[in-house]
């Protein structure tokens, strides 16, 4: 028996081995970040880097599934690492605080955008573009979410983000974060179709999912 007996028949041995040897950088350990990190650790990813400098607050708990009310006031990155380590899988989790333009990006296969603000999203996208690394972006707002993978484009070439206050439902975060984790696995294992140069738009109010091809 192995931890992955139920998924290897679907993904295959080769994919599972690729996951074990993979390194993923996750920007943001909030709603999306908690889901993405937990699913990637449970998928068998070998190394996870997480960047977040925020502390856990009361309004985070309804959607940030790695944290409980006992964690309020604690650092998100430290708490996330503690919870992910406690799963007991052989995934090395390394954490960072705030990142800037001079941040020395570790050698990774995929970068995942789980940040909640435009400046951090665009910064991470520029780092990915500069280093020619797959960038899996997601954003959520109310009932709506979007996921997109870019490699030869920067986020700001396609998307435009405002400064509007955001309101978020845990269900949207759960769906979007899960698809984002699936997309990371697809990129690592070269499974197609993926969301490279596409936007998957999710609308949980109308239960509509549609894909826009970016030109």
């Amino acid at each position, binding site marked *: 028996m192995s931890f992955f007996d139920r998924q290897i028949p679907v993904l295959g041995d080769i994919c599972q081995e690729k996951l074990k040897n993979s390194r993923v950088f996750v920007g943001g350990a909030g709603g999306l970040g908690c889901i993405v990190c937990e699913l990637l650790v449970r998928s068998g990813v070998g190394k996870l880097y997480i960047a977040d400098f925020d502390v856990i607050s009361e309004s985070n708990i309804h959607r940030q599934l790695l944290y409980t009310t006992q964690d309020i006031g604690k650092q998100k990155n430290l708490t996330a690492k503690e919870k992910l380590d406690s799963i007991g899988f052989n995934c090395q989790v390394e954490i960072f605080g705030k990142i800037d333009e001079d941040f020395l990006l570790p050698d990774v296969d995929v970068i995942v955008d789980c940040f909640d603000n435009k400046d951090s999203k665009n910064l991470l996208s520029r780092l990915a573009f500069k280093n020619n690394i797959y960038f899996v972006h997601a*954003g959520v707002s*109310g009932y709506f979410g979007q996921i997109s993978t870019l490699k030869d484009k920067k986020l700001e070439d396609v998307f435009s983000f405002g400064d509007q206050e955001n309101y978020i439902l845990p269900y949207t975060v759960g769906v979007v974060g899960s698809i984002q984790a699936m997309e990371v696995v697809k990129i690592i294992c070269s499974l197609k179709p993926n969301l490279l140069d596409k936007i998957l738009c999710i609308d949980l109010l109308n239960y509509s999912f*549609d894909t826009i091809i970016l030109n």
Partner: protein
Amino acid sequence: MKIRFYAVLRKITNNIEIILDIDSISVKELLDKLSNQFSPVIKEKLVEEGEVIKGAMILVNGVNILHLDKLNTILKNSDTVHLFPPVGCGKNLL
């Protein structure tokens, strides 16, 4: 021309997608037409002082109009237009 609405624009128009039989009009003229047909709020969500509002996104056949001729981009009847209000519009749905 296929026009797809996202987020709060779906609630305002009560539509996910509409088809219009029009040709050779600018994005600005299309938004005027949609505002007349549904609600002026459509234009308010997307345009401010003659520019696309920061955070809103208008794609024509998968290309952001900021990389085309912005609001003066001319549309063909065969085009698909995607209209996204600014991220952070969730409060408008509550």
